[in-house]
């Protein structure tokens, strides 16, 4: 029987360039698949066989507590936030991917999506998913860099421990101020109260394959789309054909997420060119009317 690996020995570590972080993951799933298709021909009853139609790819996704005390190359927040911020700031450039390790398995992945939520009186949780393409760039007599490699074993790393008992480094709704995202109406003045927010960003990437090798020679991030849903108590009917510029024409807004202590530590997401494209209201029994607006940005 194989070694049984309990969750406390299955930490998730993400490395980007020269920096890494063991995340406080709450779940993680890994898959590895090959795209094999049967071929048929006229004059033959059965299939000719099953043949590969695309390169092998892997998928890794995980949820994690939104840690916000780390600083990676000057970017406050967890390493996924750092990675996402970096990618959207350098779209359409050659990317090297992030090394993801969990319980003996590892691979180099490209970020598909990253999201987190902020709600009152709650710990924030994030999720991220990666696609792993592998790499054909190998030297002579070396194995191919397959998308996912390794065998199940205890992780030889663990989350950073500062011996404190209160999770002050975890993003929380207690001191996070989202007033920059509230709806403000004039005549008469009415400012919204923000009850929660859901942030997400998704990336498109383009692996470049060449004849003669299975795995791509390189991968580019091509576009990124950012979205934020804000739940509040004001419905703005002033939505225009071209949407509403948030915070002026440039639409530059910082989403600052804080932890359990009202100090300067925060995770920051710089959003630019933000437009509001949607507003909605809904009500159910025994609750107030809550509104939700959707903010988007593209990179």
């Amino acid at each position: 029987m194989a070694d049984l690996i309990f969750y406390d020995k299955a930490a998730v570590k993400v490395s980007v360039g020269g920096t890494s972080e063991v995340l406080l993951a709450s779940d993680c799933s890994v898959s590895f698949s090959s795209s094999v298709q049967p071929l048929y021909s006229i004059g033959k009853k059965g299939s000719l066989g099953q043949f590969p139609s695309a390169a092998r790819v892997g998928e890794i996704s995980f949820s994690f507590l939104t840690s916000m005390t780390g600083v990676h190359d000057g970017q406050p927040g967890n390493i996924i936030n750092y990675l996402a911020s970096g990618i959207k700031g350098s779209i359409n450039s050659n990317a090297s991917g992030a090394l993801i390790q969990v319980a003996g398995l590892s691979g180099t992945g490209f970020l598909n999506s990253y999201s987190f939520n902020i709600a009152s009186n709650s710990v924030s949780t994030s999720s991220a998913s990666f696609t792993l393409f592998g790499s054909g760039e190998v030297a002579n007599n070396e194995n191919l860099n397959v998308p996912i490699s390794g065998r199940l074993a205890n992780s030889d790393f663990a989350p950073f421990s500062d011996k404190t008992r209160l999770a002050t480094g975890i993003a929380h709704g207690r001191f996070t101020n989202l007033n920059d995202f509230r709806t403000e109406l004039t005549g008469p003045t009415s400012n919204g109260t923000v009850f929660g927010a859901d942030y997400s960003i998704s990336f498109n990437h383009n692996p470049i394959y060449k004849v003669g090798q299975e795995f791509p020679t390189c991968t580019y991030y091509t576009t990124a789309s950012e979205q934020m849903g804000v739940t509040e108590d004001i419905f703005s009917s002033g939505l225009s054909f071209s949407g509403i510029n948030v915070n002026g024409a440039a639409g530059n807004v910082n989403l600052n997420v804080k932890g359990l202590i009202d100090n300067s530590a925060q995770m920051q997401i710089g959003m630019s060119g933000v437009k509001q494209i949607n507003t909605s209201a809904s009500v159910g029994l025994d609750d107030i009317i809550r509104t939700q607006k959707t903010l988007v940005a593209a990179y």
Partner: protein
Amino acid sequence: MLGRITREAESLTINGSGIQGIQSISANYASTAQFLNNLGVNDIKYAPQGPQQAVIDVNTMLTHTLSLSAPTLSTEMMYGFTGDFPFSGVVDHGSKKFIFTEGYMQSYSVNCAIGQIPTISTSSVIYGEFGTGDLTNLPTDSFPSQLNIPSYSSMEINLNEFTTNRVLSFNIDVATPRIPIYAVGLDVPTGVIAATPVEVNMSFDIEPDDYEIKNMRFVPEETVFRDTIITLKKNNSDITLLTYSFDDMLLTSESFQGDSNSNASINFNLRSFILR
């Protein structure tokens, strides 16, 4: 020897007024801090998950009423908190105390039986502070309550059934739902909705003479609605202390009990909803 704190050293003050006739009081909170678990866990850490609230339950005998000149809807102080407004207070016990703020009553009940003084039970949820701290801007007790003890022998119930059937006891339950609204960046509600409707249940135990159990089907001619008024008067007097009045109460249940050692008894319940 270890000391003890007895009833004479305990008190409850709400909005600056001392609450009289208390039989029991309980107050509690449960921390919302939860252990944060994660893959590769190697550390025990806690963080609050969910809003922090407390509960205070008070049981009193109706021995005191507010002055008629007090600016309240009811001369029974706690009954006044079934409305929209919150209250703050302090519980003293010996040389210690704890405070609470932004208390909202969630349930109020009064019951009385033969040989008893009416008793009142309330349960309130605390959305503000609870525990250590000081109350500021306390109102002064401009209308201190006065000793006024009602009696079962001097109360009036307006239901026709009670002219020919003997009432043993009654119970009134008022449920006042609250909806706290929490915003990002705060640990106290930005507002507390006094939700609607308020549900009122009133039940009576009687020893019947000519009382007749109704048909349980929703038969139009036997579906009973009652305007119900219970008037509590000062013991051995005709001075009205307090009136509970509810309109259009629907008869929702009846039960019959026969026993070899006692008279037949019937319990019935009336229910109504009040829109705020």
